[in-house]
């Protein structure tokens, strides 16, 4: 039943896409498309949510006579799918709501409107697919639709390049997933997931499948070193699409990985956990370091997606490690942490991208070095963005902290793992996790400070206007979610129970019954957290302090120029920019991670030229992985291309050679 509703939602979305092609040029189409998308995703969200809470019936599956002829297209709604459908459709809902306002400023609606619903439909279908072919088809369809959205503003050369790299990487990922499914399905071509679950692959095969799944899903999720396309493509799209790509589509990639490794592949080996943990840790730290070096607001957010994907994969790796040693409840804890972070990240990343979109429409600027002081012009946006920044920096009482806290709890359970490698690896990963969390806080102090605080650095920042009501509504809905998930995590953790039950056969103890809604993952004596209590206490304490002081001491206040140690500067240019804010951290980490070199040029004495300061940074991942491939391909292309300009005689020689070779082969073979 629920499945039918969801599939019809998809059908409606696709219909809308087709209709949008027809009326792409008209203004009314914007309203039409986004409101349809809004309604449909609201419906889908309701259905998926109820399926998740009430427990989806495993029998809820259909087989449509499309796709591979003798196979058909299998669709199924299970707990895992339901969870991700909630994430997807929550994102779609808010994005559509946002789009109602944001879409009005779209210069080329004809290149956005048809693909937006198609993109939503693609993501929903991936979470529903129940056979390899349908999965890959919808997966690549999703990539294709999002590619079209990335190319919406194709006149900028680097957007076109971003789209190209994106599509290339996406196809690469799909190809490796295709190979993975080829291994899973076997020569008989049993592509249905049930058939795949039926066969138990040999260790080598499952190792290969894990690797391919890591490459395939990782390239879409943005695991280092497969992340290069992400910071190019996500910002290139219109902001609500960036939000969807960063907040939701990467989660679909996570879904793919979870589906393959936890559901289809059978019992894991312990080293899988080690591999995934290592990748996750590196991704988390590198991602946030990249973000710190960035001064383009949207690209910074995209790099933070890389970081959070790393955190999620740390949780998944822990779950794999525990599961391999048949420690079910720790595995459930780790997986819960990962999945909860999936939800949380989708919420606050969408929120942040919406905020950046609002800034973009208000100022036409993505470069933080040219913004500043927006908190005075757009206070509401600033507030929402601040909530998002606090949440993504994993600070209590918001939701980002809860999922990272759960991950830490899982890490603290690692000593009971028998394998020495894991024993030594996990603490280091924990340190990396803490490092990335702290750096993220620094990065968002930088982002929020440079964009919204201080004094406006340019005229556009001075003349900015608060954004429209639709955008604000969707931002505040998400901000409220950040707080609610932070202070009432118990309900969300309980909602994840069925999923871990389905994948691991275990789940965390019931949380919501506990005293004052405290969450206790393992045992009261071990660790517990109560966001609600902390929130109430802090607010109360702050309010009391303020009240007492103003009541009995003084409430007097006078405005005056800034003190600034006695020499206030007229020009806002002397403020700390984002680059200068990141400088200490660059001094500490950058020289290793980016070979960062600082280059100062001082004018000769007596001259009035300005001094110049340059920072040279290199993307080592690109240099190490992609540049060689690039040059190898072009080398081969150059060599082979000589053939194009041979003489006819030379071509005849080729034919002659072929004949002689084959004849010789034949003579030898006989």
């Amino acid at each position, binding site marked *: 039943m629920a499945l039918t509703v969801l599939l019809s939602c998809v059908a409606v979305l696709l219909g809308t896409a087709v209709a949008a092609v027809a009326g792409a040029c008209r203004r009314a189409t914007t309203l039409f498309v986004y409101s349809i998308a809004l309604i449909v995703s609201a419906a889908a969200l309701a259905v998926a949510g109820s399926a998740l809470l009430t427990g989806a019936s495993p029998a809820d599956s259909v087989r449509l006579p499309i796709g591979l002829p003798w196979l058909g297209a299998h669709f199924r709604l299970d707990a895992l799918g339901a969870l991700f459908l909630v994430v997807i459709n929550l994102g779609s809902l808010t994005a559509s709501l946002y789009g109602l306002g944001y879409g009005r400023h779209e210069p080329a609606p004809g290149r956005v409107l048809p693909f937006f619903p198609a993109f939503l439909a693609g993501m929903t279908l991936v979470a529903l697919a129940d056979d390899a072919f349908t999965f890959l088809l919808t997966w690549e*369809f999703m990539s294709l639709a999002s590619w079209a959205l990335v*190319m919406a503003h194709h006149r900028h050369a680097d957007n076109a390049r971003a789209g*190209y790299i994106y599509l290339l990487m996406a196809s690469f990922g799909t190809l490796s997933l295709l190979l993975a499914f080829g291994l899973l*399905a076997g020569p008989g071509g049993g592509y249905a997931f049930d058939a795949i679950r039926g066969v138990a692959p040999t260790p080598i095969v499952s190792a290969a499948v894990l690797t391919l799944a890591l490459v395939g899903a990782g390239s879409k999720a943005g695991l280092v070193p497969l992340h290069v396309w992400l910071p190019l493509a996500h910002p290139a799209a219109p902001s609500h699409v960036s939000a969807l790509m960063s907040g939701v589509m990467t989660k679909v990639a996570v879904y793919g990985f979870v589906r393959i490794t936890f559901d289809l592949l059978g019992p894991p080996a312990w080293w899988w956990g080690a591999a995934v943990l290592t990748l996750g840790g590196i991704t988390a730290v590198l991602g946030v370091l990249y973000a710190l070096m960035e001064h383009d607001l949207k690209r910074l957010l995209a790099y933070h997606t890389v970081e959070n994907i790393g955190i999620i994969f740390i949780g998944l790796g822990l779950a794999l490690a525990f599961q391999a040693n048949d420690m079910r409840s720790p595995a459930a804890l780790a997986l819960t942490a990962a999945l909860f972070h999936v939800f949380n990240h989708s919420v606050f990343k969408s929120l942040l991208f919406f905020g950046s979109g609002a800034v973009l429409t208000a100022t036409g600027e993505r470069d933080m070095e040219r913004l500043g002081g927006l908190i005075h012009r757009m206070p509401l946006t600033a507030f929402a963005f601040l909530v998002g920044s606090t949440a993504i920096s994993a600070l209590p009482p918001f939701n980002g902290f809860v999922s990272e806290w759960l991950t830490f709890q899982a890490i603290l359970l690692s000593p009971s793992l028998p394998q020495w490698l894991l024993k030594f690896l996990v603490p280091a990963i924990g340190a990396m996790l803490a490092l990335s969390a702290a750096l993220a806080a620094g990065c968002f102090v930088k982002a929020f400070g440079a964009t919204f605080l201080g004094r406006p650095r340019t005229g556009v920042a001075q003349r900015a206007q608060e954004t429209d009501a639709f955008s604000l509504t969707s931002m505040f809905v998400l901000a409220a979610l950040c707080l609610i998930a932070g202070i009432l995590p118990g309900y969300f953790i309980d909602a994840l129970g069925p999923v871990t039950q389905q994948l691991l056969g275990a789940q965390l103890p019931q949380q919501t019954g506990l005293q004052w809604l405290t969450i206790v993952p393992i045992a009261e004596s071990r660790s517990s957290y109560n966001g609600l209590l902390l929130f109430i206490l802090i607010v109360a304490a702050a309010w009391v302090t303020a009240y007492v002081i103003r009541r009995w001491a003084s409430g007097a206040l006078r405005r005056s120029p800034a003190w600034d140690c006695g020499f206030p500067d007229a020009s806002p240019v002397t403020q700390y920019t984002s680059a200068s804010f990141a400088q200490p951290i660059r001094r500490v980490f950058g020289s290793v991670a980016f070979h960062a070199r600082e280059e100062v040029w001082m004018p000769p004495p007596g001259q009035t030229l300005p001094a110049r300061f340059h920072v040279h940074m290199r993307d080592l991942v690109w240099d190490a992985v992609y540049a060689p491939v690039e040059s190898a391909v072009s080398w081969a*292309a150059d060599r082979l291309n000589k053939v194009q300009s041979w003489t*006819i005689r030379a071509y005849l020689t080729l034919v002659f050679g072929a004949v002689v070779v084959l004849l010789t082969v034949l003579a030898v073979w006989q």
Partner: protein
Amino acid sequence: MIELGPLLVKAILIIPAGSAALLALFPDDRATGRLNAVGTFLTFLAAASLFFVRPDPGPFLIVDDVNVVFIVLNTFVGFTTSVFSASYIAHELDIGRLTPTYLRFYHAMYQTLMFAMNLALLANNVGLMWVAVELATLTTILMVGIYRTPAALEAAWKYFILGSVGIALALFGTILVYLAARSVVGEGLDAMAWNVLVRQAAAFDPTLLNLAFVFLLLGYGTKVGLAPLHAWLPDAHAEGPTPISAVLSGLLLNVALFAVLRFKMVLSANPEALAPGPLMVTLGLISVVFAAFMLYRRHDIKRMFAYSSIEHMGIITFAFGMGGPLANFAGLLHMTFHSLTKSAIFFSVGHIAQVKGTQRMADIRGLTVSHPVLGWGLVLGVMTIVGLPPMGIFMSEFLIVTSTFARQPVLAVALAAGLLVALGALLLRLNGLAFGEPHGSNAPAQASFVPMFAHLTLVLAAGIYLPAPLVAWFQHVAGLLG
């Protein structure tokens, strides 16, 4: 009713021949385009009816499950191409690239080509098929050279030399097959008839068969355009009129491949003979990888898509070489989709080259802005040809790669790598062609978009839903191919 079958078969051959003669004599240079289309349409009708009526094989002509697929595809694409050709040639006439005399010649040759290809597909006699393929080659040579520019003549000359050598090799192979059959079947026509050959191949002398297959693979493989025998193909596509490029890529390559397949069936029917699979797989893989890299350095849009044809012919040969019901099915599917898609691409490319007045990709930019319909048509076509879903080629490539990966992982990885490299090249070019700031003239194209979008819609629909009878049919044929 009994007489209807042979009648249809004759119609498939006579209509093109007759209209060729007619068009050669027809004075009016405007109506000829339409007349051409009508002729091909009638042929298509006759061919389509073969699904329902099945005449008994004669000594010279045969209609069996295998070639019906090819014939219907052939006549259909021939028809749509003639529709496209009507508007294309009209424009060529306006700008004076073609004189009325050459126009007549062109249409006559077009029909002759259709006649030759149908004959090759229908032939029940290896010798007759050889003659038909030879005829098809010669007509295309003439049409490639029709613009008489140095480049065109050079392309035609190259095509002529390489093609004739290929055809000579094929003839030698044919003779060897006859010799192999003669000692079993006895002298006379039977020793060259398909149905007889396949039935009795088990008793043939394997040595002769092997030798024959080597020559036939190389001979007809030259016409399929497999590397390293491909050299004629890119220039022939680039220099001839675009409808001819479409027919070459969409049909003639298939006809040659069909010949190879027929002989593969004969060979695999003989237990002692060498397995034809490995040879085809090797040639196919070489073609895929080679073409994939060649795509990066192309500057001429038609030449680029010609190389992509080489790549896809490689894929198809690879699939048939792998054999087995799944791979053969995928190969047939891929062949069909490739014919439709590639001809569609050439339709759009032809109009693009006409409006922009050039084939150099450096001079073509931002088509989706300047000519939305053409531009998005091209985008859709390229997306299809590189195998992105939901279009049909994704399905066939999915089947080929997965089924191969389970049996020969190394080959599958190599194939996948080739596909990826080719995808990278084509998308790179597409970025420049379709997106970015528009460049060059943006005069509206007076073009018939119907054929292009008809093909693309077919491929798209097939990618999502394949009708069951068609599937059963293809599976049956795949079974026959062994």
